[in-house]
């Protein structure tokens, strides 16, 4: 059986230890050198970055997130032992792990590290589909000759370099399609490398719960359960037509996934349709001043993510949830795509002023969609707003300063509201 040492990258034929360096971190699988669709997922990404930048945190449980009404965005593995999970409300997390150090997210830094990881991935293949800052699909089909090594070796090398050069660890899932690669990367975290071959696919899936499927959330899971579907084996007993009739287009997709089939290609653009950020308030508010501050900070976040992805968007959306949980969305399309926080803010602020609701609100969100490459963005000025160009220049200068001295090196007054 082909085998690979994850420490020194030596390839050999079976063995519990690497013949070259005697490491026990050996990966062996019959299809190891023929599979080429991979999913890379960083291990507790935000927390790892924080621990890297602040060694004092290394041995402590760390939670990234903010506010009492906020949620956990990432918990380090020490905190996870105590039961802390992503998306868990902060008060609950702190109940489980009172000694945890809560760190406010430093998005700009994560974006920068994500860019560096992306650069490493680019050396492997141009076919990368980022799902978020810390995970991406890669298609390495046909790259073996270019690199002189099969994909598995290059992927092991990638995580090795991420650890040594960037100080963050990641887990790799390698399989024959995206669906399985994503499942695989989660099997052996952290610092994992899991392989699901074509021959073992059906056996592997049989007793796994259907909630493993990306897109099967709580609600969908409940309706599947009411149809008696809990595992992949249950799912496989259904005819394709029946599934489609009962669950619509997602039912038809399930039929294929139940058999481990997934024809979606790894493609750079398909992943992202919009960039948005939202925030739930500590307490409901109707204050235009407070909301204005939020609109600005959210616009800055959306802009930072768009800039990191080298994207821009033509449509700006404002989302408001009232204290009574009524959802309002307002959107407008600009003449040309933008990635400038100032333009996103001004547009969102205008939408807010004409939203036709005085609040109080419990949530506000800002989004950018109808995405376009950044080369098409912000090309023409506005006659009626001659200072817009100057503000955009100031923003770019601010970005440069922040990249060097950190996010808080320079702030707008309105960010403090």
């Amino acid at each position, binding site marked *: 059986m082909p085998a690979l040492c994850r420490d020194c990258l030596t390839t050999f034929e079976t063995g519990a230890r690497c013949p070259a360096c005697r490491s026990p971190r050996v990966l062996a699988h019959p299809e190891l050198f023929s599979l080429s669709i991979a999913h890379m997922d960083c291990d507790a990404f935000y927390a790892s970055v924080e621990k890297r930048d602040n060694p004092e945190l290394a041995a402590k449980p760390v939670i990234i997130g903010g506010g009492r009404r906020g949620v956990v965005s990432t918990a380090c593995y020490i905190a996870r032992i105590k039961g802390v999970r992503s998306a868990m409300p902060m008060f609950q997390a702190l109940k489980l792990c009172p000694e945890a150090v809560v760190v406010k997210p430093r998005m700009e830094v994560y974006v920068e590290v994500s860019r560096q990881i992306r650069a490493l991935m680019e050396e492997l293949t141009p076919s990368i589909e980022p799902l978020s800052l810390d995970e991406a699909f890669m298609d390495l089909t046909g790259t073996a000759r270019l690199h002189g090594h099969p994909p598995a070796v290059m992927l092991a090398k990638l995580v090795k370099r991420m650890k040594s050069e960037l100080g963050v660890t990641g887990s790799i899932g390698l399989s024959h399609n995206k669906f399985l690669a994503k499942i695989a990367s989660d099997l052996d975290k952290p610092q994992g490398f899991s392989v699901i071959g074509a021959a073992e696919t059906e056996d592997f899936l049989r007793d796994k719960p259907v909630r493993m499927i990306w897109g099967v959330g709580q609600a969908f899971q409940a309706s599947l359960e009411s149809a008696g579907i809990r595992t992949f084996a249950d799912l496989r007993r259904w005819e394709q037509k029946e599934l489609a009739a009962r669950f619509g287009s997602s039912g038809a997709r399930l039929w294929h996934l139940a058999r481990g089939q997934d024809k979606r290609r790894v493609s750079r653009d398909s992943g992202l349709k919009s960039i948005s950020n939202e925030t739930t308030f500590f307490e409901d508010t109707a204050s235009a001043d407070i909301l204005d501050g939020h609109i600005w900070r959210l616009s800055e976040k959306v802009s930072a993510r768009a800039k990191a992805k080298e994207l821009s968007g033509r449509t700006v959306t404002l989302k408001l949830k009232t204290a009574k949980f009524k959802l309002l969305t307002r959107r*407008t399309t600009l*003449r040309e795509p933008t990635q400038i926080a100032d333009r996103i803010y001004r547009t969102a602020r*205008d939408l807010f002023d004409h939203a036709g609701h005085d609040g109080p609100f419990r949530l506000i969100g800002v989004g950018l969609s109808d995405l376009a490459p950044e080369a098409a963005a*912000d*090309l023409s000025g506005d006659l*009626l707003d*001659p200072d817009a*160009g100057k503000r955009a220049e100031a923003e770019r200068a601010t970005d440069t300063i922040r990249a060097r001295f950190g996010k808080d090196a320079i702030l707008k007054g309105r960010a403090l509201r």
Partner: protein
Amino acid sequence: MKFSIERAVLLKAIAQAQSVVERRNTIPILANVLIEAEGDGVQFRATDLDIEVVDKAPAMVEKAGATTVSAVTLHEIVRKLPDGAQVQLSDDVAAGRLTVEAGRSNFQLATLPKEDFPVMASSEYGANFSADAPTLRRLFDKSKFAISTEETRYYLNGVYMHVATGEDGQALRCVATDGHRLARVDAPLPEGAETMPGVIVPRKTVGELRKLLDDDEAKIAVSVSETKVRFATPEITLTSKVIDGTFPDYTRVIPTGNTKKLEVDAAEFAKAVDLVSTVSSERSRAVKLSLDEDRLVLSVNSPDSGAGTAELAVAYGDEHLEIGFNAKYLTEIASQVDRENAVFMFNSAGDPTLMREGSDTSALYVVMPMRV
């Protein structure tokens, strides 16, 4: 109500009414035209609550009365009737039907009570004056292309008509801008217009108004108040609310220090811009102008689809300049020039550019460059 009317006369009257009616609306009566017969004429009234058009036509009225009926249906029927037909309309109030008869055709249309029809409240017009159709035509035709469609800056969704001091004294001025280009057109101030408040005439009203202005001999009675504007010919009265907002101070947008002068045949220029921009498949096609002494090179470079250049002999005597524009804005502006050369005044690649028609100072355009 009962009257008969010539098909061509009816068609003309009803055509204007049905174009005001909103195709998609939730209030049924707004889809209808109010028909009022009295004396020796009939009046057709239609509204979308922002614009009201009243069209008078001569008819043989047998019995005075009024009713409302679907404007679009009636228009379609009349349009399909043979030319020269005599059309008879009569209503049956009890049955709620309007009968339309012409030759051997007979239609029964559902009506809604005339009392339900919203009539626009009258306004105190502070200024009343008369203007020639060609004058108004020029003012609006040359400015309307720059009207914005952006909803957030709703106060740009129309033409700002106001009194201003032009280069030849007091003027009736129309300005429109969408933030990327601006058009400013002047006409000699008609008598009686001096006291006119500045109003923003909505885009749709500009479109409807245009239909009154085809006749070169026509005199248009214009009435303006703070909230409404009215344009009337002897047959048609168009009343419209104006946009409730403040038009921005456009004067500070018009560059005064541009010194680099380019003179070019407008038609040739527009053609060349259109030609080179063909290679670009992007939504906003950028064209680059490279200027050297008496020579203009237009070029488009689209990473996805290719590149193209075209050269024109022009009059230009300043230093080398490269500046980019949205191709559509350039062709639209150049096509405003009717007789003379287009005269462009540039400053730098980042500053607004000015365009005039030859030595004519009554029309002026500004266009914002684009990074290329």
